[in-house]
C-alpha cells in the first residue's frame, strides 16, 4: 500500500534534508551528508560509548575485570566510568537535537521494515526509496536515545560517591540491574550500528570526511538524493558548476 507521490519528482516534505546536506555534481557526484560539527559530535559520542562499554563490562563480569587496566586500575575505572557517562549523555543530547527530525517515523518505514528480509539478502533494488535515514537507522537512533536516558538515570542512582544518600539500597539494587541489562541492549544496538557501517560499503566516509558518493546516496537513500537535487537553494558551498541542478 501507500505509494507516496509516485509521479512527483520532488517529494513534498523535505524534512529529511538537513542543513549542510548538499549535492555536488561531477564525476563522481559527491553528496555532503554530515557537517564537521556533526562529525565531531558523533565521534565524541562514539569514543565515550566505547570507553563506557569497556569500563562497564570490566565491572560487570569478573572475566573482563582485566579491562580496568586500560583505565589505570579498578579504583580509576570506578571513578572514570560515571564521568564518561556524563560526557556521553551531553554529547548524545546534542546529537539528538541534530538528528531527531530526520529520524521521525514515516509511512515508508513500515514498508521498509516489511521488506527488511530483502535488504539483508542484498536485494536492495526491491526496497522502497527512503530519505536520509531508513527504518533500521531510525531504530538505532531511537533505541539508543531511550537506552541512554535509562542508563544515565539508573547510573546516577548507583553513583554512590555523590548520590548515595538520596536513594534506598533497594532502589540502588533495582538501578544496578536495570543499568546492566540496559547496557547490554545498548551494546547490541551499537554492534548493529557498527556492523551496518561495515557491511554497507562507502558509509564510513560520511562520518570521516562528511560526504558520500552520489552512487551511495542513489543506492541507499534515493529519496534524500532526489530531494537534495530538487532543492536548488541548498548548495551553499557548491564546488562544481554554480548552476543549481534543474
Amino acid at each position, binding site marked *: *500500500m*501507500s*505509494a507516496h*507521490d*509516485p509521479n512527483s519528482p520532488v517529494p513534498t516534505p523535505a524534512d529529511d534534508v538537513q542543513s549542510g546536506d548538499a*549535492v555536488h*555534481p561531477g*564525476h*563522481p*557526484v559527491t553528496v555532503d551528508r554530515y557537517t564537521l560539527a556533526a562529525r565531531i559530535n558523533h565521534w565524541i559520542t562514539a569514543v565515550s560509548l566505547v570507553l563506557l562499554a569497556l569500563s562497564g563490562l*570490566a565491572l*560487570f*563480569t*569478573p572475566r573482563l*575485570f582485566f579491562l*580496568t587496566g586500560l583505565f589505570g586500575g*579498578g*579504583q580509576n*575505572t*570506578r571513578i572514570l566510568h560515571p564521568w564518561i557517562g556524563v560526557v556521553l549523555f551531553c554529547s548524545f543530547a546534542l546529537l539528538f537535537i541534530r538528528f531527531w527530525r530526520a529520524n521521525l517515523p514515516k509511512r515508508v518505514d513500515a*514498508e521498509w521494515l516489511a521488506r527488511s528480509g530483502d535488504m*539483508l539478502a*542484498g536485494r536492495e*533494488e*526491491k526496497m522502497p*526509496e527512503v530519505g536520509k535515514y531508513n527504518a533500521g537507522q531510525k531504530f538505532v537512533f531511537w533505541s539508543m536515545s531511550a537506552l541512554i536516558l535509562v542508563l544515565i538515570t539508573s547510573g546516577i542512582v548507583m553513583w*554512590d*560517591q555523590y548520590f*548515595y544518600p538520596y536513594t534506598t*539500597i*533497594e532502589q*540502588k*539494587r*533495582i538501578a*544496578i*540491574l536495570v543499568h*546492566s*541489562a540496559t547496557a*547490554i541492549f545498548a*551494546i*547490541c544496538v551499537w*554492534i*548493529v550500528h557498527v*556492523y551496518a557501517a*561495515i*557491511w*554497507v*560499503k*562507502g558509509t564510513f566516509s560520511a562520518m570521516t570526511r562528511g560526504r558520500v*558518493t*552520489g*552512487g551511495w*546516496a*542513489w543506492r541507499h537513500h534515493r*529519496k534524500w*538524493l*532526489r530531494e537534495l*537535487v530538487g532543492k536548488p537553494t541548498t548548495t551553499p558551498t557548491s564546488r562544481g558548476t554554480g548552476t543549481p*541542478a*534543474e
Partner: protein
Amino acid sequence: MFPPIPNPSVDPSAVTPRFGEKDIVRRSASTVEPPAQRLTEVAKLIDVTKCIGCKACQAACLEWNQLTEEIGINHGVYDNPMDLTENTFTLMRFTEWENPETENLEWLIRKDGCMHCEDPGCLKACPSPGAIVQYSNGIVDFQHANCIGCGYCIKGCPFNIPRISKVDHTAYKCTLCSDRVAVGQGPACQKACPTQAIVFGTKEEMKGWADFRIKDLKSRGFENAGLYDPQGVGGTHVMYVLHHADKPSIYAGLPDNPRISPIVETWKGITKYMGMALMGVAAAAGVLHYLVAGPNKVTEEDEENAEKLTSGAAVPPPAGPAGNEGRPT
C-alpha cells in the same frame, strides 16, 4: 559462665597465624581451589538478653582497629553514632519496645555489625578479584588493597553493613578480628564485654552455649527465646540469642528472613550469562551475515544514475512498492 579464652602466649611460635591465604574458600570475582583441609568453623555469639548497653564492645572495636569516630552530636537517644560508619564496625542499637502481652517496656539492645554469612552477599556482588574473601573458618574479610570502592557489597549485603570510606574510597566492616583470631584470640569486642553477652568459640560450642542460655530464658518465662542463625544466608558466624526470636525485626530492624536480594541474584546470575550470550550472538550474527550475504557495494550503475539525476537526464522514477525497477542501460 563460659570459660574465657586464655591470654596469648608470649612464646614467639604462637605469633604464627593459624590461617591465611591457603584457607580461603571463596574469593570475590574469582574461582578458588577449595582447600584440602578445612578449619573448624568459628562463631561469635551475642546474647542480647545479657547485654547492659555499656558500649565497651564499641570502644574496644575502635581501639583494636585503631579507628577514631568523628565527634557527633546528641540526638536524644542512646545510639551513638546514629549508624554504622567506615570507622564504627559495630554499633549498639537501642530499641524501646512495649511487649503487648505483658505491657512491659523492654529495652532491647542489639550489637549490630557484620554477621559473617556462610553465603555472603557482599562477596557475591563484588566485581574486584580478591577484594572480599571467606576463610574456611567462616570469617568474611575485606582486602583493602583490592577494593575499588564501587559499593556493590552494600547492595549485596542483606544486613546493610558495609560502608565506603570518604578518605580512601574502600569498603569497611567488622573483620571478626581476623588478626586476633589468627593467633588464637577472640575478637576485641568479646574480650571487652563485662557480662559475657559476647562469647566466641567454635560454631558448635556457640550453638551449645546458646541452647543452655535459651533453656534458662525459657525457664524464666521467655517462651520465644531462641537462636538467630538465619538459614536464608546459609547460617551466620555471628549469632544472636534473642528473647523474642519469633520477631527479630523488633531488634532495630534485624531482618526476619535475611537472604541475598533476588534482584542481586538476577543481576549477578542470569543477566550476566544472558547478557554476554546476547552480545556474542549479535557479533556472531554480523560476521555470519557478512560471510553469507557479502558486502553491500555501490555499483557503477548507481553512480551513473546519480550523475544522470544531477545533470537532469532521465533516471528511473521512484518505484512503487512492488515495482521492479526498469534498469536503463
